[in-house]
């Protein structure tokens, strides 16, 4: 059948189920999904194939992605994450798989493109329906480079509690250039639905660049502690900033954390003691903290 998704998600409930559909060949003509009520509009729009012809002559075709309603209630954290990304870097890579969304920033100027940030979001937590198809069945992933600043501006509407966006649909679409199209259903007093569409330009990355954005290995650390409340920490670090441009973080295996700066005039250290320490367990060759 055609890869259309119908959801009965109403905007007031937090739907946490993801409907991932197997990859199907693109329909010759897009068929609109039957809509039951005005709040559950889930029409499928044309996703045109966007061939990316790389310098090497490799062709990656038809990265299609359709996201259907995004429950606004759970939107705060992705909005915050993208806000943080915007503060950290001008460019960011979004990796999309069936089950997860990843935001990746690589540290500039490093030889192996060491990662600077790796954020992993469970799709099912945020979307009630997800449809995507990548390059091929075995490489079913999409990598997009975008400016977090632009996306952050678009999503900032979710930060205001006064505006109840009924639902949000994110699609990868080919307009003048490849875009992430965000369609928001706004509340309306009349019978006509009000839809706001934002287009954020993106750059789909060819497969030969994917290896630069693979999941970083868990580093072999010598000490591991839970940080004290970040607000407290920030307060201390900001004071120390006026003394030096670099800060030394030190910890031992008894839950002590020391922040110190050195200047010509003084050595300043702040001690946090008796912090909790995480227990790390090995799961399939990668360690995860046991919370």
């Amino acid at each position, binding site marked *: 059948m055609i890869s259309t998704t119908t959801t009965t998600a109403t905007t007031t409930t937090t739907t946490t189920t993801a409907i991932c559909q197997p990859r199907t060949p693109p329909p010759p003509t897009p068929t609109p999904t039957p809509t039951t009520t005005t709040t559950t509009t889930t029409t499928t729009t044309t996703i045109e194939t966007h061939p990316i012809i790389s310098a090497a002559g490799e062709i990656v075709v038809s990265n299609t992605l359709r996201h259907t309603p995004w429950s606004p209630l759970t939107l705060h954290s992705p909005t915050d994450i993208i*806000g943080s990304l915007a503060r950290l870097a001008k460019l960011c890579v979004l990796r999309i798989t069936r089950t997860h969304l990843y935001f990746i920033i690589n540290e500039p100027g490093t030889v192996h493109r*060491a990662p600077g940030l790796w954020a992993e979001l469970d799709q099912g*937590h945020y979307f009630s329906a997800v449809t995507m198809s990548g390059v091929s069945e075995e490489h079913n992933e999409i990598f997009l480079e975008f400016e977090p600043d632009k996306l952050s501006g678009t999503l900032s509407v979710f930060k205001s509690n006064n505006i109840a966006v009924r639902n949000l649909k994110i699609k990868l679409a080919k307009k003048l250039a490849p875009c992430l199209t965000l369609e928001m259903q706004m509340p309306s007093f009349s019978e006509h639905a009000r839809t706001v569409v934002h287009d954020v330009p993106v750059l789909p990355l060819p497969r030969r660049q994917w290896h630069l954005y693979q999941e970083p290995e868990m580093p072999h650390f010598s000490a591991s502690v839970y940080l004290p409340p970040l607000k407290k920490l920030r307060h201390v670090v900001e004071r120390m900033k006026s003394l030096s*441009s670099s*800060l030394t973080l030190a910890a031992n295996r008894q839950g002590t954390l*020391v922040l110190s700066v050195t200047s010509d005039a003084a050595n300043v250290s702040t001690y946090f003691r008796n912090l909790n320490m995480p227990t790390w367990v090995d799961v399939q060759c990668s360690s995860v903290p046991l919370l």
Partner: protein
Amino acid sequence: MEGAASQVDKEQLHSATVEIKKLISFLAGEQIGPSKVICNIVDDRMIHLFLLHDDVILQYFLPATRSS
């Protein structure tokens, strides 16, 4: 004797020096909430910040500027 040795081992501080600006941009940007943040220290190489909240995992890698 062994007990004493491991006690010293536990008290041994492991450290890495990072750019203060980068640390602040992490601390300032983190608005996700009262989540638990783990700080891992790789001696003189890197600070690894690991954040778990709901269905979000965030990892920051702050490279060490120089050995202290």
